[in-house]
Structure formats: structure tokens, C-alpha cells
């Protein structure tokens, strides 16, 4: 009984205390919030040991049993503990792993950053394939989406201004009465991008945001009142 209701009471009590602490700055409530937050920060720091345990165990078993791909597991474990070693060494020797002349910083600059940048850069290729599927002119709505996307893309880069300058020149050649300078200053792509971002996009974003906030409150209330219990084991 207590195994099930104990955590629910704890959740309800903690939530109630934190709500009260939000409105009461006086001790013990004002301090209480900071104390809870400190506890959370400490716990979240220690949870990385759990992760380390899971990762190391998973791959060490693979290496010991010589399972398929064990060599990659060996590489992973060596990298994991190698990074840990250099981090600790830099911490002891240079007071911080991120000291500019520390060996860990060398690892960071010449291995971690390039690896992350490479992975991020692959996004460019995926964007091309996804963009084609998203912007196929199947119907009017998809066509409008394509036009809006092109406007935003051109409005975001200097080439958009150059293209618009060319279009302005063309308009001026066809209609000589138009003022070329005024046309150029219009900056259609940049103006369209700003309008799309600030009006239709922001309006839709706010709509979704309000829904999310209300959904979040409803979800919190279900958790606080013990109606939502899926995060607990039975």
C-alpha cells in the first residue's frame, strides 16, 4: 500500500510546497525552493554514473563475448575511459579540464568539435531530400508553402538582395517610368521574410504555444493529483 501511495503523497506534498514557496519569499519557504533545486542539481549530476554504468557494461560484455562488432565496442570503451583520464589529469594538473593549454582541451578542439561539426553538417544533405518531399507542388497549399519557403530562403541571404536588384532593373527596363532606386529599396525577399516570420508564423507559433502551455498545466495537475501514474512502477 505504502509502496504505491508513498510516492504519490511525496509528489503531491513537494508540488504543494513549491507552489506555496513561489508566493512566499519568507523563510522557510523562500529557502525551501532553493534547497529543492540544489537537491535536483546534485541528483542530476550523479545520474551520469548510471549512464556510465549502462554504457560500459553493455560494451564490455560485447568485448568479452566477442560479439559481432566487438572491435567498435573496444574503440568506444577506450575512447570513453581515455577522455575520462585526460579530463581528470587536466583537472588535477591545470585546475580545470577546459584550461586552454590542458590536454583535454586539445581533445575537445581537435576531436570533439570536428566530430560534432561533421555530424551537424550531414543535416544539409538530409534537408535537401526532405525539402523536396515537403515542397512538391501537389496542390495549392503545397505550392504556397514552396513560395513562402523560397521567399524566406532568399530573404535570409545576401544573394536575395542581389536577385531583387536584378528583378528591379528588369522591371525598370519594361516600365521606364518606375524609379529604380525606390524599387531596389523595397527588398521584396527580405520584407516578405520578415512579414512571414513576424505575422503568420508567429501567430501559428503562439497558437501552438498556448495549447502546449495548457496541455502542460493539465498534465502537471494530473501528476500532482495522482491521476497520471504511468511514470511510477506498480
Amino acid at each position: 500500500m505504502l509502496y504505491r501511495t508513498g510516492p504519490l503523497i511525496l509528489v503531491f506534498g513537494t508540488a504543494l510546497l513549491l507552489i506555496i514557496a513561489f508566493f512566499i519569499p519568507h523563510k522557510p519557504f523562500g529557502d525551501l525552493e532553493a534547497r529543492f533545486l540544489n537537491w535536483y542539481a546534485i541528483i542530476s549530476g550523479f545520474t551520469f554514473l548510471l549512464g556510465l554504468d549502462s554504457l560500459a557494461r553493455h560494451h564490455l560484455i560485447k568485448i568479452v563475448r566477442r560479439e559481432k562488432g566487438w572491435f567498435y565496442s573496444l574503440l568506444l570503451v577506450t575512447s570513453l575511459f581515455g577522455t575520462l583520464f585526460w579530463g581528470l589529469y587536466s583537472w588535477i594538473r591545470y585546475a580545470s579540464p577546459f584550461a586552454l593549454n590542458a590536454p583535454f582541451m586539445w581533445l575537445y578542439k581537435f576531436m570533439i568539435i570536428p566530430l560534432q561539426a561533421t555530424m551537424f553538417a550531414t543535416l544539409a544533405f538530409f534537408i535537401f531530400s526532405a525539402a523536396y518531399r515537403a515542397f512538391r507542388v501537389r496542390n495549392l497549399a503545397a505550392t504556397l508553402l514552396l513560395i513562402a519557403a523560397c521567399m524566406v530562403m532568399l530573404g535570409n541571404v545576401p544573394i536575395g538582395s542581389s536577385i531583387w536588384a536584378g528583378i528591379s532593373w528588369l522591371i525598370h527596363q519594361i516600365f521606364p517610368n518606375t524609379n529604380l532606386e525606390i524599387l531596389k529599396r523595397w527588398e521584396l525577399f527580405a520584407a516578405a521574410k520578415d512579414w512571414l516570420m513576424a505575422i503568420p508564423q508567429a501567430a501559428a507559433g503562439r497558437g501552438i504555444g498556448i495549447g502546449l502551455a495548457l496541455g502542460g498545466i493539465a498534465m502537471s495537475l494530473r501528476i500532482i493529483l495522482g491521476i497520471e501514474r504511468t511514470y511510477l512502477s506498480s
Partner: protein
Amino acid sequence: MLIAILRHCFKKNLKVILTGQLALGLPLGEIALNQVSGEYNKVYGRDYVNIGYRPGSTALMVGIGREIRDFFKTDYRGVPLDSFEFMRRVHNYHDIALLVTLAHGAVADAWIQYAGARFNQKIIVGCTGVNAPNMYQYLSAQQITGLIGGLQGASEYETLVEKPGAATLGMPAQSTAHALLIILLIIGNIGFILSKKKI
């Protein structure tokens, strides 16, 4: 983006406190601080301080509203905060004139929700181009004071501080990629329309 902002701050003799929400993001801040402080003859501890990373995410954002020392007793090297003269007066958001967050969407959202909405902290967001659309709603509702969106925003900031850097250099590549994407989309759609007609 960070380098341009640091140049702006140091040019105006503003004190800078650097912290990181991701442990692996912080060294980039240290590298930038080291580079820009040298350009403006700024001294660690007198003009800027790096208080490092602490786990806790949103808990930390709320906690700073009360007392920064509850989470950051020392800087990233373990030196007590109170040993830096200008840090002795810094306790919470009330003592921080401007919070600049260079972050992806959720972290920026959290700063706005916790530091901005709860403690009325003035905030400027610098984010990736993908996240910038989401920030426009905060900008128009004046929940943030400024927005630096993606590479374009960074290059504009570099132009503002009159020192073109990596972002400005990256703009031609970005222009080419955008133009290429548009051309490929047009070609792809022509192919799509033609294939539909065949059927």
C-alpha cells in the same frame, strides 16, 4: 556570434559573466573569451569571469533568481566568486543588466520562461536559424529585447561592431547553398509535374 557580442561588451567596458548550460559548450566560450579579452586588454576577474557549468538546467535558472552563489560558489577553476571585486555585488538577476543566451530553442525558451517571466530579466537570444522563427513571438511580445538569428544574425552583428569575422565569411557559402536548394527544388518540381502528366 559570441565573439561579436564579446567585442561589443568589451568595447563598451561592460563586465561579462559567462556560464554554460551544456558542459561541452563551455570551452567554446573560454576560447572566445581568451581571444577577445586579449584584443581589448581585459583582465580575468576584473572585467570578466567564467563561472563554468553546473548540472541542473532549469533549476539553475530559477536558483540564480535568488542567489547565484547557491549554484556557483566558485568560477570554473575553483576560485571563490567573492574574490572577484565586481562579483561581490552580483547576487541574482537584479544585479545582471542583460542576459544573452546563445542556445537552441528549449534552453532559450527556459531562460525566457524562468529568468524573463519570473524575474523580469532583460534577455537577448542568439540561436540557430532553425530556432529563430520560434523566437519571433517573444520578440514581438517584447519578452526578449533582441534576437540574433542564425549565421545571418551573427554576420549582421559582426557588421554592427565593425569587425567582420567567421559569420560574415560564411554568408557566401550560405547564399550558395540556399540558391542551390531553390534551383534543385525547381528542377525537382518540374520533374514531378512532368511525371504526373505522363501518368
